[in-house]
């Protein structure tokens, strides 16, 4: 799979203020012969919430480490608020960070943890007190000031870590997979709180995660990374609807990849011709990337494949054999093997499909190409 970094410099950045907060310019990190981060360039606007998303080992944490100053780039530069900080020691950077493990100081209570950064800045005691109180109030930690950090729940520790990072009024807030240690319900709750915190403080935030759900729900923009390279930079909706390549398409949400086919126009109807299946018509206007004669692979979201329980044949209907049902409460994902295409998944509300089309039965699927993503067949 070839990486196609889409910089989209022309696209306006949804920032709250003008000017960029962080400029990452052709930053590279080699670990011996291995490439950790390969020539990444990225501009983050003031007040923007940007997520670095990718599988483990994709370089997202290394990139975050370079912004924080814990990892020295092999090449390139990092500019924050117009100042080149590439060679600045971490403690002179004024960048707040929440660690995956929270890294709270176990020998200090909640208050001293939060006050640490301000004490290091040698602020007057009265000001420290006021700022810490404010942060404690903002993170709803009132009454916990004298608690040991070990006595706190995961969610409370998380809030202390956030309070400690924002109290120094950092130029940028870095969040390194801060939700991964929490259980599911708490994670949803903290997502809301993170969002609220971002809205209240307006801090430029760089969030690292491998969880696409978190990325989609929190971010102004998402930077998808794989093998050290940026695959695509886009707003969540854009990323979901218009993935730039096969990696992004299959990493964000669930998607069906159809086998390579050819774009054709027959009698005014645009269609995708799949070998062994025949033409599938595009409903109104062909999807972006349609060009007669072009060899493409079509990617289809699960919601654009609909089971036709009557079983009637028709345009854009393919028939296959039900391989499995994956019941997930609110919906069921049904896996169907279609000859000539392979595996296709469809998502249906409820569990009725399990009885209507038992495993081994044949099932007709209506394929809606209106939202199909067409990518080069070579990918």
């Amino acid at each position, binding site marked *: 799979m070839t990486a196609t970094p889409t910089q989209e410099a022309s696209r306006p950045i949804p920032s709250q203020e003008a000017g960029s907060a962080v400029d990452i310019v052709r930053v590279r990190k080699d670990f011996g012969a291995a490439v950790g981060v390969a020539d990444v360039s990225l501009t983050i606007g003031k007040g923007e919430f940007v997520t670095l998303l990718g599988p483990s080992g994709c370089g997202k944490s290394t990139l975050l480490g370079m912004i924080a100053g*814990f990892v020295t780039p092999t090449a390139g530069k990092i500019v924050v608020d117009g100042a080149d900080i590439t060679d600045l*020691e971490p403690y002179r950077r004024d960048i*707040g960070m929440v*660690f*995956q493990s929270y*890294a709270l100081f176990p*020998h200090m209570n909640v208050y001293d943890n939060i006050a640490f950064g301000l004490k*290091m*800045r040698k602020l007057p005691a009265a000001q420290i007190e006021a700022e810490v109180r404010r942060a404690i109030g903002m993170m709803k930690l009132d009454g916990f000031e004298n608690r*040991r950090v070990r006595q706190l729940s995961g969610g409370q520790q998380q809030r202390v870590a956030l309070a400690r990072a924002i109290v120094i009024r950092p130029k940028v807030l870095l969040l390194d997979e801060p939700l991964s240690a929490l259980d599911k319900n708490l994670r949803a709750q903290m997502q809301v709180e993170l969002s609220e915190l971002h809205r209240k403080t307006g801090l430029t935030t760089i969030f690292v995660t491998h969880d696409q759900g978190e990325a989609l729900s929190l971010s102004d923009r998402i930077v998808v990374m794989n093998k050290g390279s940026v695959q695509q930079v886009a707003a969540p909706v854009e990323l979901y609807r218009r993935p730039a390549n096969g990696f992004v398409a299959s990493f964000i949400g669930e998607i069906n990849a159809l086998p390579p086919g050819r774009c054709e126009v027959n009698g005014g109807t645009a269609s995708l011709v799949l070998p062994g299946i025949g033409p599938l018509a595009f409903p109104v206007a062909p999807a972006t990337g349609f060009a007669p004669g072009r060899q493409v692979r079509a990617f289809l979201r699960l919601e654009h494949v609909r089971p036709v329980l009557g079983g009637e044949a028709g345009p854009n209907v393919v028939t296959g054999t039900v391989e499995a049902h994956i019941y997930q409460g609110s919906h069921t994902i049904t896996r169907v093997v279609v000859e000539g295409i392979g595996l296709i998944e469809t998502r249906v509300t409820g569990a009725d499909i399990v009885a209507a089309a038992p495993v081994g039965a044949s099932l007709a699927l209506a394929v809606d190409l209106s939202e199909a993503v067409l990518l080069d067949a070579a990918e």
Partner: protein
Amino acid sequence: MLARRPFFITFLAPAVLTAVILAAAIFEVLQYSVREFIPGSLNVGGFTLANFAALNKPIYWWVLADTFFISLLTAIFSLLASYPVAYALVRAKKDWVRSALVSLSITPLFTGEIVRTFSWMLTLGTDGFINSMLRKLGLIDMPIQLMYTRFGVVVALVQFSMPVMIILLATAIAHVDRDCEKAAANLGASPTAVFWRITLPLTVPGILSGIVVVFAWTMSAFSTPQLIGGGKILMISNLAYLQGFSVLNLPFAATLSLIALICALGSLALMKGVTSRIERRLAVN
């Protein structure tokens, strides 16, 4: 559990046997300490508390106090000398530096106490390494008295205890969460501040156990004060030896040994109390 895994008993047997023998030996010491001393004979008389009454002389109190003092000094200086070594041993970036430090700190454990003490005698003597170097450099005219001094004894004991101290400290330093140090740096703490406010406090449990172990260990030191102190520096073991093998007063030697044991255990218990209170306050672990 023992019943369901009978091989446990087999495995435990050597340890149990050793413990029983040790208990028997200590009981024998206890038994000797309450026996009457018959001058000119290795046989002992009937039961008496005279040996304990004989302890109440300033000379014995001084030896006991000196033993405490030397042990405390040794523990403190051993800590000061070992911490940087342990820190470098854990944190050195180059592999060869770490392995070199491990070898340098651990190998002294494999040379006997006597060998090491003799090396110190060669180093500290009036014609020893230190004095001849200082004289060659023209810094002194007359040799400095290093042998037969409390200073010389403490120096040798510090070197003697360093391997153990280094191991205990290195373990503690290796357990410090590096993310905590990174977080402190991220919050504006310079490397010096990170050390004093994060690394050092988080290694306090290791520091305390190092001090306790070295202190209790030094309390029972024998050959080092014997050879380097040369009779001028008496620690409690040397006094017991003197009584037992020069005066041949075995009951009184037993009494002194018992006192030494009680003092060592007592100070261990005392320091354990103090350390657990400090640990609770720091809430580390």
